[in-house]
Each structure stands twice: as C-alpha cells, then as structure tokens.
C-alpha cells in the first residue's frame, strides 16, 4: 500500500535499471540523444520502484527525470499504464503533476512503467512543517490544496483510464472485513464502524476523480508552495470530499495537531479555496465524516503492516512497531466521533 511511504522508510535494495535501455527511452522522451547520470533509488517497496536520474544532452543540457516501474516481467502492464494515463489527464486538466514523458514498451527491456519529469521540491512532511525554507509557503498551502483538489475533481471523466468506483459504504465494509481478518478485537474501531455505517453519505450522483492519497507527504512543496501532487496509485471514482477529509486526518499533521489541514492550515481556507475554484460548497460535517473514515482506514492499515511482520512475510522492526501506533488512530477516531477534529 502506497500509504506506507508516510513512514519515510529507506527503500528496499533492488537492481539498477540498465543505463543503456534507460538512455534509449529517455532519448525518445526528450527528442535528443542523451546519456544517463546520477541515477538513484528514491523510494518504494520490493515490487514497485521509483528512480531519479539526469538525462544529459551532448550540448550540456541536463533534464531531471523519474522512472516509475514494476520490474517484474510477468506482471500485467495495466498498473503503471493506468497511472501514466491518469497523470496525463490530470496534467491536461490543470492539476500540478509531473509531466509524463514516455510509456515503457516491452521492447525497452525495463519492465512496465513510464518516465516523467522530476519536480524539484520537498516531500518530507516534518520539513515542510518546520523548515525555514517553507515559512512563506505554509500560510498558502491550505488554499492551494483547496484549488488543486477542485481541479482534480473536475478532470473530465472522458479523459480518464478505467478506474474503480468506491463509495463510503463500500469502503467501510472493505475495512471491516480487513480488520476481521486479523482476529484482534478493537472496540474503538467497532464504535467507529457503527457510526460510519450510520452516517455514510449517499453515493454522489456523478462520481468524480478522487486522488485517494491526497495528503501532506504526497505534495512536492517549494518555497512558493505546492508544485506537484504525487502518488496516484489509489485513484478511483467516488465522493470528492474523500480527498478533503483524508488531507485533514490527524496522522498527516505530524504533530501540528492544531492545524487541521495537513498540519499547515485551517479548514476554512481549504473549503473557501475549494469553492472558489469551482469545487462547490462543502459542509464541514461531510468532511468530518471522511476524516473519521480516513482515521479508521489508516489504523487498520497499521494493523495490516504489523501483521505483515508477524506473519513472517517481511520481518522488520519498523513494521512491527506500527502495530503499537494503532492506539493513536483509535484515540483520534474517538475524538472525531465526539465532534472533534
């Protein structure tokens, strides 16, 4: 699960992509013969890789690129190509995303994936929330996120690849089943599941594109503010307020609890900018519903990560410790059920 990256864990070791094959694709993407320099792993787990590198032209030009790929040969290419088409559609609709440059083909010999431009900036939440370099950006981030969310939710349906439709009631059922699989009682989550089932908003008449992991940690931020939205792997069609709620889940405030929006801003700014950018008027209680569901989702994901360790799939003290962070999400959830933020 992509959400895992919130942990800032170092990437798992993986073989480097072949530089010659990469140079061939990059040359096609740039439209000039390039050589590859400074290739380095950015992040990712065992089955999905993100590599940064520079494509250098003979004339001395240097173009920062990113390779996103699933290196395994047998896997269907659909995942990465969906992401590629999604980024293309979002970019065309004015959402700040890295410009996609080339979709890998089997003949490229690099697995399934694509090249995109590298957007310079910071993604580590604690730096975005604390470093002086972002002091001027922080007051505008909430409004920027509101406008960006409105743009995401306005991406024309006709330009999108096929995506699953996920509504609130379906997600509640999905995470209830996931929780049951671990066999560990969590009365706080049971209270949450009851409330979430009782208060689920009706499915939207016309489902919008939902980013699905729109939060502090997936935003590339510079001194000027948000430059790009990354990590579209959980994108789906559904209630657009899901993105606004997920952005306000307390776990993504990284200690800045009082700043409801990502630890950097206030809800009013987010919703005002969202409406001003054409997203429509959103009821704060509707956002709070998705905050509650998001909090529960992250808690259940933490349990799942701990059981990835406990089952022996991946032994890791980092995954193990996540099991004891579940109580934080239970505490937050009880607060949200009581009307808190």
């Amino acid at each position, binding site marked *: 699960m992509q959400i895992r990256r919130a942990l800032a864990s*170092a990437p798992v070791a993986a073989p480097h992509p072949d530089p010659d094959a990469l140079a061939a694709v990059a040359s096609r993407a740039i439209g000039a013969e390039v050589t590859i320099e400074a290739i380095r792993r950015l992040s990712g787990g065992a089955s999905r890789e993100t590599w940064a590198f520079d494509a250098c032209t003979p004339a001395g030009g240097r173009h920062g690129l990113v390779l996103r790929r699933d290196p395994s040969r047998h896997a269907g290419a659909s995942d990465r190509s969906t992401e590629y088409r999604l980024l293309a559609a979002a970019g065309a609709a004015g959402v700040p995303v890295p410009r996609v440059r080339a979709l890998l083909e089997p003949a490229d010999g690099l697995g399934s994936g694509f090249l995109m431009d590298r957007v310079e900036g910071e993604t580590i939440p604690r730096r975005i929330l604390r470093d002086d370099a972002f002091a001027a950006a922080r007051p505008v981030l909430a409004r920027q996120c509101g406008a960006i969310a409105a743009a995401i939710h306005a991406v024309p349906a006709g330009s999108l690849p096929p995506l699953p439709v996920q509504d609130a009631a379906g997600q509640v059922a999905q995470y209830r089943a996931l929780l049951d699989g671990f066999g560990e009682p969590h*009365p706080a989550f049971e209270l949450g599941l009851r409330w979430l089932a009782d208060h689920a908003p009706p499915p939207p008449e016309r489902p919008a594109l939902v980013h699905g992991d729109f939060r502090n940690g997936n935003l590339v931020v510079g001194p000027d503010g948000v430059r790009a939205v990354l990590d579209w792997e959980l994108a789906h069609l559904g209630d657009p307020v899901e993105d606004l709620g997920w952005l306000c889940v307390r776990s993504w405030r990284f200690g800045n609890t009082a700043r409801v929006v990502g630890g950097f801003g206030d809800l009013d700014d987010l919703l005002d900018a969202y409406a001003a950018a054409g997203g429509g008027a959103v009821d704060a209680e509707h956002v709070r519903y998705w905050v509650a569901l998001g909090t529960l989702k992250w808690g259940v994901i933490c349990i799942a990560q701990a059981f990835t360790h406990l089952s022996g799939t991946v032994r890791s003290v980092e995954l*193990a410790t996540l099991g004891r962070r579940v109580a934080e999400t239970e505490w937050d959830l009880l607060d949200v059920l009581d009307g808190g933020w």
Partner: protein
Amino acid sequence: MQDRPTAAELVAAVREWIEHDVVPATEGRLAFHARVAANALGIVERELTADAAFTAAQRERARALLGHDGPAAELERELAARIRDGSLDGRLDEVREHVRRTVREKLAVANPGYLPDAARP
C-alpha cells in the same frame, strides 16, 4: 521467578546501548532503524512496568459492562462483538467511556507523548 535484572531492566540496558552506542555509530537506514528499535524497546519497558495494572482495570470495567468475568482479552473480544451487533446500543455512553480509557491505557504504553497532559492515566 527470575533474577535481577528484571526483564524490563534488561530491555532498558539494550535500549540505552542502542541510543548511546549504535545510533551515533551508524547512519542512513541502520541509524533510522536504530531509533525505531529503541522506541520499540521503550514501549516494552512501559508495558512491563504498567500494563498489569492497566489490564486489571480494563477487566474490571469490562466485567461491569458485560455482567460477567473472564480473561481481559476475552471480555474485550465480546465487547467488540456486542458493539457490532448492537446489543449494547442502550449503554453506548458507558461503552464509550470504557473504550476511551482502554485506548488511553494503550497510549500510555505505546506513546505517552501523544496524549494531552490532562488525559494521561
């Protein structure tokens, strides 16, 4: 019954070694995991020191809610099931109070800094 150092004291000795000797001598992934490991051992120390009292209190509350006694884990499992099936809906205020206390007791072990001062058990 085991000799001193107690289990918690042994865990503390290893935690201090990680903090004082491993973290300064490492970098990158290893240093990151060293901090995670030291934190994990801190959780264990607090659990070994405090959890027996927490579990006893939790069991006593659950007994009062459910009307019968049992191991804390079994009572908690029953409580979760009865919240789901609705059979405690008439006493949700009591249930919420119990659950909030239980979560507070878990946080006091897992991450006491997460609790507002007023909520520390």
